[in-house]
């Protein structure tokens, strides 16, 4: 693509990344969550992939890293659920809510603006799903682009 598109992509990529991370991190307070935030971040990756050619991008956007990100997301999601068994609870029990530790602040009931440090395992699961969607949706675009390069279209 032209220099204008590349400069715009360079400028927009960190902004898109921060906005997606905001959606993921505030999944238990505002509309959004892991899937939506991960899709927003993957949009930034798609923008960079479209703005640059595959050869330029394959140096720092490696497929193995993205695939590992996807696997880490899914394994982390299941691991957070399985960790409840260590606390003597059932699978996917919210053992951190209201416990006072990480994301465990007691939430004020009723209508309020919300506190980031609440909701127990829900933010952790949001992060795991966000990482998974981030890697997954980016690698699909990267795979298709690499196929196109090989075909010479």
């Amino acid at each position, binding site marked *: 693509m032209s220099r204008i598109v590349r400069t715009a992509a360079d400028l927009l990529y960190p902004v898109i990344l921060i906005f997606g991370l905001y959606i993921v991190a505030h*999944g238990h307070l505002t*509309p959004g969550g892991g899937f939506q935030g991960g899709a927003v971040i993957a949009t930034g990756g798609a923008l960079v992939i479209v703005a640059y050619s595959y050869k330029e991008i394959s140096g720092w956007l490696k497929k193995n890293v993205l695939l590992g990100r996807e696997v880490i997301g899914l394994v982390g999601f299941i691991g957070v659920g399985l960790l409840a068994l260590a606390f003597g609870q059932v699978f*996917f029990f919210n053992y951190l809510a209201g416990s006072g530790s990480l994301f465990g602040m007691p939430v004020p*009931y009723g209508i309020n603006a919300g506190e980031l440090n609440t*909701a127990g395992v*829900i933010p952790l699961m949001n992060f795991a799903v966000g990482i998974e969607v981030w890697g997954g949706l980016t690698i699909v675009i990267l795979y298709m682009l690499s196929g196109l390069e090989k075909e010479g279209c």
Partner: protein
Amino acid sequence: MKKMFVVVASLLILAAFFGVMAMTLTFGSPMVTDMDDYFLRHGQEQTGSNNQCTAVVFDFRAFDTLGESTVLFCGIMGAALMFRKMQGGEEYEDE
């Protein structure tokens, strides 16, 4: 022709049945509200999440989200499998 008539008539009867069913329900006041009321009353204190959508998706219905992530994972594995040969440099068998 007779077959066509039977098909159209049964479709019309089915549409009328579902139309009457839909007309009798009023929007915003479902017939059974026990589960909705439970989620809205106890969701905040049980999960600590202000966003009840996320509370349902990631806590009350976490198994559904697990299935969703698995479906995403399997779909991307399928895409990776489909484009595997194009990046390996090996030739197609049918070419």
